[in-house]
């Protein structure tokens, strides 16, 4: 992973120099605005928290696509969590829904700025280091699967 990251960063640097040379430095600045926004505006950093039964996390925006989603899967290190063990609610005050309830007739509806909280019954080991979480969403109108992945060390639930 570290090797991949180093080589990616080097490639990014090389390509950035090329883009700046070909199209001007303003290009690099503007593309960085988009990249920074996409990175910062979906997954809410440090929202991954261990709970008594599993973990929870939150998004501030839908990942890449809006609309109606007939299915939603959460995977931990590549292992899918059974949908009846995943609950979702739109923030700030939507009702919790179990992800197994979603379907073509009862889709999860997301639009720009829709915050989403996830709560699972899927324990993850304490102090195990970063965990890879993947979301997969199936839109009812456009078939290809939409996904996002993040890797973070879960925080412990604060004791009262």
């Amino acid at each position, binding site marked *: 992973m570290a090797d991949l*990251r180093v080589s990616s960063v080097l*490639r990014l640097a090389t390509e950035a120099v090329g883009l700046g040379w070909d199209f001007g430095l303003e290009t690099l600045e503007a593309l960085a605005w*988009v990249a920074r926004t996409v990175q910062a*505006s979906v997954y809410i950093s440090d929202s991954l928290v261990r709970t008594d039964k599993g973990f929870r996390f939150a998004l501030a925006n839908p990942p890449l696509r*809006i609309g*109606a989603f007939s299915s939603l899967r959460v995977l931990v290190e590549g292992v899918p969590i059974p949908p009846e063990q995943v609950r979702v609610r739109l923030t700030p005050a939507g009702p919790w829904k179990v992800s197994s309830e979603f379907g073509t007739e009862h889709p999860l509806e997301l*639009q720009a700025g829709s915050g989403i909280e996830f709560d699972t019954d899927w324990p993850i080991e304490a102090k195990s280091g970063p965990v890879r979480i993947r979301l997969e969403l199936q839109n009812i109108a456009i078939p290809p699967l939409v996904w996002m992945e993040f890797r973070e060390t879960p925080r412990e639930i604060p004791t009262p």
Partner: protein
Amino acid sequence: MTSPMDRGPSSAPPLLLTSLASAGLGDGRGDLECVRESRGAPTEWGGVYAQLVRLTGPWRIELALGDAHTDLPSCRQEAGEFPGGWTSRHRWNDLDVVQVVAASPQPPGVVRELFLRSGSDREVSVVLTSRFSPYLFPVLVEGIRPVELVAETLPDSLSIRHLGFALRASSTVGSDRTLRDGRPWLGDKYHGPMDEIATVHTVRLAPGKTAEIRWQICGGLGRDLEASLSEVGVRARPAKDVAALRASDDLRWTASTPELHFPDAPELEAGYRSARAGLRRLYSAPDASMVGLVAGYPWYSAIWSRDLAVMLPALLWLGDFDWVARSLRSVFRFQSRRNVELLAGEPGELPMQLAPGPIFLYGTSDSTLRFPAVVEQMHRHTGDLTAVRDWAGSVHRIVEWGVARTDLATGLLRHGGEAEEIGLATAGLARIRYGIDSPDTTIWDSADRREHALDVQVLWWETLRSAARLLGHATDPDRGSTCEARAARLITTIRAKYLWPEQEYLYDSLRDGAPVARVRPNALRAVSAGFFDPGTARGVVRRAARADLTTEWGVRSLSADDPGYDPGAYHEGQVWTIATAWAAEAAFYAGDPDAGVGLLRTIVHRYEAEGGLANECYRGDRPEAFNSCYLLGFSVAPFLSLLFERLWGIYVDGVERSVRIVPRFPDRWTSASIRHLRVVDGYLDLSWSPGRLVVRWIGNGPLTVDVGSGPRSVPAREETALELPRPPET
């Protein structure tokens, strides 16, 4: 007061106000709010857009008199567009309100103005609250609303920024107070998330007098906004003045375009005017160096190269040579010079999407291939070869890009995997990764049509043919001949590999050397390109006309008999107007003008039903727009081009100062005419009756006209009557 999400989508046509650098979107009920079904769910698209950046979400204005309050939709009496703008009348508690709204190009944004008059015989104070949600992000990645904004009040306006994007909100009546997310805010610098900003204004109404208040929200790129405001100031011009400028520009533009008359088909005349007006709304010049047309509204309000290339031929027929040349320069400016894996760019490739910044990315298989034919057509219509060497060089870089993607054994262009390449390139870079498992990137980009979709091969052939012609003009015969040879080989391969005898149709694609047996309208592109003999062409057109592919409201993206058919899936069953246009074009080519005109009428019926807008697509099982932009260039431009290229049968070769005209009107038609068709350095008026064409050419020197019986020199400023040969039996 009810929120628009609670009220639900309006059944009325949406309100779409555009300038060259901005747009205002509403539902026509009184505020700039607009809930539309998008990707299957209701979504709010109302607000202000500028420089292809969505500045705001819904923008609402509320009124209060004492303890009573209301909003504009709740007290609306009437509303409607006027040239360049939109107005609404409201009455509430003895108060008459007239609202005028217009989109302003400079500074880019929207102006809203209220004229208030009270029926009371004493002075009353009306409290007006303007509320909007800041967005500040290009409509580039759908569904992202920034969570970090910087806001502060300045002496003359309210400023909100997100990285390099910015907006300013101002009014002609100072605000009593400002609310941020419902709480009083003194206007000191704030950094963080923000759902809503509201400014509260008091307007005193003297008996019998009219008072006015004007708001403006403008923005886009921060650096451009500051430059624009330093030039024109923060104070908004009256909305009627802004609208009048737009109306005057539109009038001048319309007057420069041809007039078409079809006495035997007046609905086609109306369709022409409607499509022309629709295309005009898409004109965009979001910054000083970027010109084009946005793909559509509401959610494709960016310059998408694929869509632009489909629209530009229509602009050539409408005579706007300058806009075509500037649009092409805008796109070719970003032709990739090297491998840029992070943006999925390869040498020679053109961007998929453009926005001020400049922001652009690559990564489609077909966008680049659509431009050589447009460049070649521009040279044919203008006859201007002064820069042809440069254009030929740029187009040849596209050929080299295509050759690198070509299967050596067959000469077929290979596509697919572009999106996956971006994923691989960014794999190690970001802590958070996103993706759409879209393995292919043709015009039906949510469908997997790898590896050699037939319509992509048609585009590749058009690229090679156009490059050969341009290289010929640029006196580069060697490279031109190579392109011609490749094009000829490609046709041979297509004829050998795509015929589907069982269906009397054409395979959709080839994968792993085997045909992909799916009935899609894309195959009709090969008929219109002239690859097949008349008998085969007629058979394919007949097959496409069957009910599994063709409905009363248009042509499906996939046959309803296909196991993968889904009437609600974007490219796996929905009806697309652009596919209807493909079918019409193929029918004209195959010698069936009645079928062609019938399909054009199908398109016009959609325009009529949609109040002059033109939806992107419809469900496959009923004539209901679904997951559809309500105005898309794809749905108007091909219709316009077809009227000239196929119904009138006009082919312009301005380089040779010649025009070929072979009309394909239905047998029962008695007359048709065009006035003011721009060709090379002049204009053509054409008047057709059965067997006869009267040509009037207003230009410098004679023009050669061929109506199918050989070239004939037509002198300038004289009417020349030409006898039309009988069309060949088909």
